[in-house]
């Protein structure tokens, strides 16, 4: 009998005693023991008796979530939102590192996708932690996008303010201050600019490399509406990893991404980057949980492989605000593990797969960094 059950028993006894003395508690609606017994069904009483004891709340909770029996999938026609499963719960970001990075970003007028897209990992990444130094993914070209995808909470506008010309230098300054060896840059879509913002992006990469030639730079870029000149500008800027997210499977793309984004267009962009600069490592990311089938995900992985993509990450789609797409299914951690094995067996350089894994997944970066360092050494 767990401590919880003992406590429940004691409480019932106290109640019984107070009834005998005709002491009425006026603060809350107390039920007499008889009423209490009848209120709870036998099924619930059974579950309470078999439920968590004090131990579960004291030590680290077990990492095996196979016993979770909450609803994980919304069938077609069901409109009620699913409850968040326990493996997706994260802590509220606090701490000196978090505050330091946030203040620094505001001072330099920089934006991060971590804040704008409400990433659940913000506390872990900005706080540093077991993976090492604190990092943030800076979002270039402002915080307002010219597309409105149904899964993304970044602000949208027809004519966002022009990019800040001092952004490349400010970004390089911030990154130098953080003392990182691997950094990820991303941006919003800027369909209003003739080059899609690619020159600004490339200038930022060059500035970072100028200040620290040893730092490895990954760029998570837009598709530039398929403009291959813009792709070339980025691919030749000196970056190490070229990333562009395919986001979802082909059949769901029109309903999930903005209509200017297209599945085949994204694949073409990834392929072209590889053709323009074969030394680049290319990377893409898929969100699971929007109603795709296993066959569709498998096909997407195959399409990425054909396009020459080296690394792939798979993560759980989480609804950022009430106005965005509701989660269709919460994929279990063991299923994510299955996709990791599939990815590895297909021959991807690295497959990062997990519910909270996002495009710039820290452990993956360590792996990619080691690959790139090895290449540098062999090249010398």
């Amino acid at each position, binding site marked *: 009998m767990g401590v919880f059950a003992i406590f429940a028993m004691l409480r019932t006894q106290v109640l019984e005693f107070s009834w005998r003395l005709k002491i009425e508690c006026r603060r809350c609606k107390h039920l007499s023991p008889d009423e209490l017994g009848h209120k709870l069904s036998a099924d619930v009483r059974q579950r309470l008796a078999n439920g968590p004891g004090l131990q579960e709340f004291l030590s680290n909770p077990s990492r095996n979530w196979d016993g979770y029996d909450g609803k994980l999938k919304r069938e*077609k*026609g069901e*409109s009620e939102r699913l409850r968040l499963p326990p493996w997706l719960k994260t802590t509220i970001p606090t701490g000196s590192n978090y505050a330091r990075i946030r203040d620094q970003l505001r001072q330099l007028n920089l934006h991060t996708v971590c804040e704008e897209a409400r990433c659940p990992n913000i506390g872990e990444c900005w706080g540093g932690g077991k993976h090492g130094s604190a990092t943030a993914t800076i979002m270039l070209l402002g915080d307002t996008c*010219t*597309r*409105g*995808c*149904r*899964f*993304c909470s970044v602000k*949208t*506008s*027809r004519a966002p303010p022009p990019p800040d010309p001092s952004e490349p230098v400010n970004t390089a300054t911030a990154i130098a201050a953080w003392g990182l060896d691997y950094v990820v840059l991303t941006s919003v879509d800027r369909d209003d600019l003739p080059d899609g913002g690619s020159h600004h992006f490339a200038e930022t990469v060059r500035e970072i490399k100028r200040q620290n030639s040893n730092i490895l730079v990954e760029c998570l870029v837009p598709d530039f509406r398929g403009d291959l000149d813009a792709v070339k500008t980025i691919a030749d800027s000196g970056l190490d990893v070229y990333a562009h997210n395919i986001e979802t499977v082909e*059949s*769901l793309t*029109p*309903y*999930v991404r*903005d*209509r*200017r984004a297209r599945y085949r267009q994204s694949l073409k962009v990834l392929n072209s980057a590889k053709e323009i600069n074969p030394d680049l490592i290319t990377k893409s990311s898929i969100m699971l949980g*929007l*109603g*795709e*089938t296993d066959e569709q995900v498998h096909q997407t992985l195959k399409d990425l492989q054909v396009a020459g993509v080296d690394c792939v990450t798979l993560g759980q789609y989480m609804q950022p605000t*009430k*106005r*965005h*797409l*509701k989660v*269709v299914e919460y994929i279990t951690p063991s299923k994510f593990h299955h996709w990791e094995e599939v990815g590895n067996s297909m021959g991807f350089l690295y497959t990062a797969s997990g519910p909270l894994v996002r495009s710039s997944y820290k452990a993956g970066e360590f792996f990619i960094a080691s690959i790139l360092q090895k290449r540098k050494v062999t090249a010398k």
Partner: protein
Amino acid sequence: MANVVAFSRNLPSFRALKYLSSALLKYQHTSAPSQCSSKTQPLPKKQAVEVTFIRANGERIKATGKEGDSLLDIVVNNSVDLEGYGACEGTLTCSTCHLIFKKEDFDRLPDKPTDEELDMLDLAYDLTDTSRLGCQITMTKELSGLEVQVPATVNDARS
């Protein structure tokens, strides 16, 4: 002491006071409001309007709003379950508020689409000749009772 006496002599007598107060009360009841309150008129009550959204699976959702609300406002205020509706929040930067009207409703809509709206509409899924973007349609009394069809969303596309 003399000041107090002088003061009390200058006060109107009790009977006079009573007469004055009753007269004032009568005055309040009988005079027109504009004579003793501000000149501004109260805001006219906005007419309530009704819209029915018909989802791709046939489900009909009734929602109410006020005159002057756009269809996007009505969806948001009533939390109508249309996934990802109005992703750009009415700035004519996406096509997620795309709605399909009946021919007669489409023709009697007061405003014709602007070039920006047409640009965004061109991108929309399931585009028809009677399509409009919901964020650009402002409801009027005459349009109340409107029935609009919502194109397929991710929930309809999934297996």
